[in-house]
């Protein structure tokens, strides 16, 4: 991972610093109930940011995730109503997951087959999904089965079981990404698709899978969003930019090939923490947005500083060695 630890250290430090500051100024911050609700609040963003990190790893963006999460909540309000019980829950859940996979396949098709830039393609799906949600539910209505969503938010003490789950998932995923052949191949495709193709990798398959996984994670995040709002609201998902912010703060490169799931988890938690803490001081929410923006800029500069220094050094070193063949089209 080499320099990969910088985001983890930075995010942990920020989480602790903000927490300590909050605790000093408001004694409720470290209360069990606040911690529990903070962790639960962070679940949708954490899960969708994992997906976003995968899309960023192959050098793409997915801005449709927020609309997809909303769509999943809306679909759940039809398929997982309070009257859905027993085995009927399974098709209800599958319907939501199916919407996620469908959106992912659609994105992958636009990006890979029609060769649209991912940001444009997913912007299109974003609008379509938003429209569909509003078509299905013109205003928040349709309660969602709390027996189902309640299971998702089960906690041991103040720790939600699901949070333990995503910590384990992130650790395993990072291990996979940096300590396995498949993870290396994924990073290779993200860093340099042309070379990867030349080395015999199926770059198309990797990109398609990445976008399907991204949408699938958004669907899972949709379940946690449903647990939070408990009603088929067509206007709630706004995590698109935050999920990109979390992945980038967690160490992902917009150029692809780099990222960390643990870092993404910490960053997503931190972003939720900002939103959670500011009301404790009766600060207006605008400050949260501005803080997030400034932090992303600072983090990007900080993460790229070593690369910038390295690049400057290597230019200086390479001038005066061998001439080159590279960079001109072959005959």
């Amino acid at each position, binding site marked *: 991972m080499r320099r990969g630890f910088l985001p983890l250290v930075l995010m942990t430090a920020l989480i602790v610093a903000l927490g300590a500051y909050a605790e000093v100024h408001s004694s409720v911050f470290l209360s069990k109930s606040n911690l529990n609700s903070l962790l639960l609040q962070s679940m949708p963003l954490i899960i969708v940011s994992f997906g976003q990190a995968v899309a960023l790893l192959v050098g793409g963006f997915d801005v449709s995730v927020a609309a997809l999460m909303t769509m999943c909540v809306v679909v759940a309000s039809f398929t997982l109503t309070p009257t859905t019980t027993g085995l009927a829950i399974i098709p209800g859940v599958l319907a939501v997951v199916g919407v996620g996979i469908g959106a992912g396949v659609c994105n992958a098709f636009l990006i890979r087959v029609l060769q649209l830039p991912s940001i444009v393609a997913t912007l299109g799906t974003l609008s379509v999904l938003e429209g569909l949600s509003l078509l299905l539910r013109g205003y928040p209505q349709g309660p969602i089965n709390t027996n189902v969503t309640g299971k998702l938010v089960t906690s041991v003490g103040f720790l939600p079981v699901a949070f333990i789950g995503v910590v384990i998932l992130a650790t395993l995923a990072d291990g996979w990404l940096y300590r396995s*052949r498949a993870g290396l191949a994924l990073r290779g495709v993200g860093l340099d698709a042309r070379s990867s193709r030349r080395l015999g990798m199926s770059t198309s398959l990797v990109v398609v899978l990445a976008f399907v996984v991204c949408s699938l994670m958004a669907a899972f995040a949709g379940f946690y969003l449903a647990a939070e709002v408990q009603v088929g609201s067509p206007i709630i998902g706004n995590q698109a930019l935050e999920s990109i912010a979390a992945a980038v703060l967690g160490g992902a490169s917009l150029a692809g090939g780099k990222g960390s799931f643990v870092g993404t988890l910490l960053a997503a938690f931190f972003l939720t923490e900002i939103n959670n803490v500011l009301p404790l001081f009766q600060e207006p929410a605008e400050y949260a947005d501005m803080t997030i923006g400034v932090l992303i800029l600072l983090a990007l500069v900080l993460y790229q500083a070593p690369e910038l220094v390295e690049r400057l050094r290597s230019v200086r070193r390479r001038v005066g060695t061998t001439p080159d063949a590279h960079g001109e089209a072959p005959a």
Partner: protein
Amino acid sequence: MTTSIPGPELPQVLSVRGASKAFGAVQALSNVSVDCRAGEIHALVGENGSGKSTLLGIASGSVAPDEGSVQIGQQALTRHTPAAARRLGVGIAYQDYSHVLGLSVAENIYLAVPSDARPRYGRMEQWAAETLATFKLDISASAAAASLSLADRQLLEVAKALLTRPKVLLLDEPTTALGPDAVEQLHTLVLERVQSGVGVLYVSHRLPEVLAVADRVTVLRDGVGQGTFDAATVSEDALVALMIGRPLTVAFPERDPLPEQARVLLELTGLQGDRFGPVDLVVRKGEILGIAGAEGNGQVPFLRALAGIEPATGGASCDGVQFDRRSPAGPLRAGVVLLSGDRRGEALFPVLSVRANATIQVLRRLGRGGIVPRAAERNAISSLVERLRVRMASTEQPVQSLSGGNQQKVSLIRPFLRGDVKVILAEEPTQGVDVGARFDIYEALRAKADEGVATVVKSSDPIELAGICDRVVVMSRGRIVQEIPRHELGERRIVEAIVGSRASVADKTAEASAP
């Protein structure tokens, strides 16, 4: 094929039959057949653009032929992907590499070998170090691939191709960044594999180098096979004769001899960048200097460095004054103008009109108080549009709707509009330009030269260089290795200089470069 050598009864490891490929209107390859037997080195030679790379692309699965078939071992290549060709036993070293620069050397080697040859992930670095040692490469396995020198990148590329245990190895200009010792090292590596039965298809424009190791040679010209010959008996002269000889289709403008003591306008001393140099060169007032060379020998980075787009060290002065090359603005202020070969990406604004593209550098002069009257713009360009014979419906037409030749003419209007141009750097001024428009472009360049501009033309077409230049220098491995004066200029002379450059020639730069 005009001649074919019966040769010993060895199995064919590669056979390309009747391959044709067109890119747009350009027929890159027509009905070319070439084969490679186990244990032989088969050289493929030809000028820039003769179709060598396209043929390699077809053999390696990255280019799907329009017609023709590929057999690897005894199996037909049915899906044209690099992965499919690899599975059948093709290893290829690309001219522009297949390294993932963001990963380490070890990770790159790991990705390059077939999955059944990979060790456990945890043993990767140790395994990679051992692998590099068997190739006698002095490269650290833990180093970042991006930190390797260009020569090491090239050697690593060949090593990676060999690691796939290919039946046939394709080498695309594998020595462009290598010095004489490294060429020797590379040939030793390749010959070892040849002895164990690997067939090699070796593309190179360096005839002496490739003839030293090849068994057979196939010549391509304009995408057409010119025959296959026994390397031991064919002479360099005979090969050059087959490589050149394209029918002359364009006329060139008249050239008057340069005055003896024409003033030096562009003077370079020890100009050196990442991929070229050091270059010492002078270009005189009214002179058109040609830059020849096989693609990828530093010509383009050299021009770009001169125009302030790439970093370089050393001195460059225009009309006696050193100019600032830290950004393109410095050379422009000094009167040094680059006509980029990438017309869509760099030279023009494709969606803007002919008028806007032509006047964009002189708006300050045409405008009054920040407002540019359309009439002033139209007056400024109307005579030039006629003089350069730009064919279009109106000056308000978007440049992207014009043909390639007319687009190039629009970018040529700019140096005519600016009164202050002293040096024009033209990169492939007629690439993708139809025959009719070529003469107009040559004439425009010559007209500028006659007005006293010093011009540098980088072209991959030796006929063009022989036709329009007053002097041609040949670049190899980033350095000027030969200078051809006006009275010797000819297609054959230029091609001989390009293909004759051995690795050792690079060391003679000092004597060979301009006065």
